[in-house]
């Protein structure tokens, strides 16, 4: 797994546009003009949704890629933030919702979700490696059953609905275009933050813990504290995305944090690739496209549209089998092959 990327040269100041590589520049411009060229459905249900899922998967990528902790609890953390946004803010169930303004409810929701995620992490790091996946899966499932059975706080099976995004600065943030830019901004910030942290001392120490925990402990690093801090950081990202998720859907129910979605997040991260923060977003776009259009594809192939899960499962199996690093791995393998001379197999000069 590639650990760090080469630092860009520091010759020009950070605001200099020419420092940005061309392909990033193109991607950025395309992302910015999408609401102008695409219809509302695509903007909302494909791109905004993919950014949110990608951000949640990014938090998993951070834990798995830099800390080797495959946590299945990230969707639950996002779900806790979503529930808390509905509980502190406004929803149709006014016996439960406190009706506080969004600028109180949202930070509180993110804080609660971060605390929840940190506590789950503190439990999960009691054991190591492969056990993490079992413990976090158990936490996610327990939370799902709790939310489904509890009516006093979570309104049980039906959940909380009519959770609307706020209206401020004269903009209704629930409209497709403003919401698109909001989720794009959050996704970009989360991406930048993860890239920054991955090269900051904390991120480097975390990668050291991943590679050899015993040696890092001998060097004087507190291994457990680093791991828990990684959970806290990832939970913050996932919680922020969870607030967006409840605004996008307008409601939150046990189905949001069921084990299926939790595993979907893992699939997104793994299919995209967990060695680089861009992977989860690639995976999320692919997942959302599949999810939206699989029905038509399956029907055109003569299969019933209900076999969507089968398609996802088989695709996931294929990716795990053939590439250790998802789409990113396939891409780098392809580039490597393209660089080699087809006859001699030697590297070509560029």
């Amino acid at each position, binding site marked *: 797994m590639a650990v760090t990327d080469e630092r860009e040269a520091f010759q020009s100041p950070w605001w200099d546009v020419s420092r940005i590589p061309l392909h990033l520049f193109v991607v950025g411009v395309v992302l910015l003009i999408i609401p102008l060229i695409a219809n509302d459905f695509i903007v909302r249900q494909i791109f905004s949704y993919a950014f949110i899922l990608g951000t949640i998967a990014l938090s998993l990528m951070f834990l798995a890629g830099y800390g080797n902790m*495959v946590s299945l609890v990230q969707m639950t953390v996002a779900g806790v933030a979503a529930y808390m946004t509905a509980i502190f803010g406004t929803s149709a169930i006014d016996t439960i919702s406190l009706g506080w303004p969004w600028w109180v409810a949202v930070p509180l929701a993110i804080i609660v979700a971060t605390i929840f995620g940190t506590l789950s992490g503190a*439990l999960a790091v*009691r*054991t190591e*490696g*492969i*056990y993490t*996946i*079992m*413990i976090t*899966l*158990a*936490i996610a*499932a*327990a939370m799902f*059953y*709790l939310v489904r*059975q*509890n*009516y*006093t706080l979570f309104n049980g099976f039906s959940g909380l609905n009519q959770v609307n995004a706020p209206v401020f600065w004269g903009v209704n943030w629930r409209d497709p275009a403003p919401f698109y830019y909001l989720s794009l901004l959050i996704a970009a910030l989360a991406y930048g933050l993860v890239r920054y942290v991955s090269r900051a001392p904390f991120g480097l120490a975390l990668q050291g813990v991943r590679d050899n925990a015993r040696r890092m402990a001998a060097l004087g690093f507190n291994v457990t504290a680093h791991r828990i801090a990684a959970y806290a950081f990832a939970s913050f990202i996932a919680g922020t995305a969870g607030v967006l998720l409840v605004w996008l859907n307008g409601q939150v129910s046990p189905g949001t944090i069921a*084990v299926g979605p939790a*595993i979907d997040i*893992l*699939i997104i991260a*793994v299919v995209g690739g967990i060695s680089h923060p861009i992977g989860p977003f690639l995976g999320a776009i692919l997942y959302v496209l599949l999810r939206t259009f699989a029905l038509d594809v399956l029907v055109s192939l003569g299969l019933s549209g*209900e*076999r969507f*899960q*089968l398609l*996802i*499962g*088989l695709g*996931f*199996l294929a990716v*795990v*089998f053939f590439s*250790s690093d998802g789409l990113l791995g396939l891409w780098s393998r392809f580039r490597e092959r393209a660089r080699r001379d087809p006859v001699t197999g030697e590297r070509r000069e560029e």
Partner: protein
Amino acid sequence: MVRYAERHPILTAIWVLAAAVLLWAIFAPWPAGLEDVMGRKKIFLNALFNGVTLGALYFLVASGFTLIFGLMKNVNLAHGSLYMLGGYIGYETANATGWWLLSFVAAFLVVAVLGILLQVVVFRRMEGQDLKQTLVTIGISIVIADLMLWIWGGDFYTILTPSWLTGPVELPLITGVSRRTGEFIYLKYPIVRLVILVAAIAIGIAMWLALNRTRIGMLVRAGVDDRDMLSATGVRIQRVFILVFAFGAGLAGIAGVIGGTFQSVAPGEDLRFLLASLVVVIVGGMGSIPGAALGALLIGLAEQFGSVYAPTYAVVLTFLIMVLVLAFRPQGLIAAGR
């Protein structure tokens, strides 16, 4: 045991006292004051028996899981799917032939063959890559779940018990005193659950004997401790792996038939039993059969008593046990023998 009592006299006294109270609560008729606080004794006894029989079912599922994990370090997240497949196969067999006992054989064989296929075709190719194996099991569980949904649909299936096992049996346990005649009322309990409990205990003891008293069991235990060393001594470890995977998967299949008999088989059950085996194994200790037994008993009791006395928080109780165990004994109550 004597040494434990010598070392911790106060703790031992507390344990003995707790056991005595439990025995008294089970066998003696309850005074009216206690019934006011705890509810009727019949409810308590039913919760106790349901908890123990549910624990027996959990033990059957989780022991296969923990055996596979202990030997191959493979967290088989498709274990719940194997359980559910066993339930469906058992239903089809019992429906087609009318033999309840035959459905156990069929479920064991079919699911064990599937387990062998998984081990030979999939897991052998990625030995040593724990994470990859686990991810693959997630993919497999999604695929199997959807295939089963395709074949059997979303209906509930219940395997009918044969006539010689239907109906309740009266146990020599007093639930209360009849107001009119003054006679004791005894607990009536479904006989099929008792038979299943006895069978689960028998399987557990047989497994313990096989692991500790036979040559194959010795190989398995050695493999749990150090599989590289074992294969270096000339044992064909792949055969041991296949055997253990087949047996663990087959146990899940048998458990599926049992679950389908006293509950039902439906989509979503795979997840429930996967979660149950995860929690049981985490609580009991990974890779340890006695640990699985203890964990299953604890979780089964917690679930039943929780759903009787605190319905909203039954899951939380189960979860709380897991949290406490992880906090104080992260290796599980009975860690795998080292």
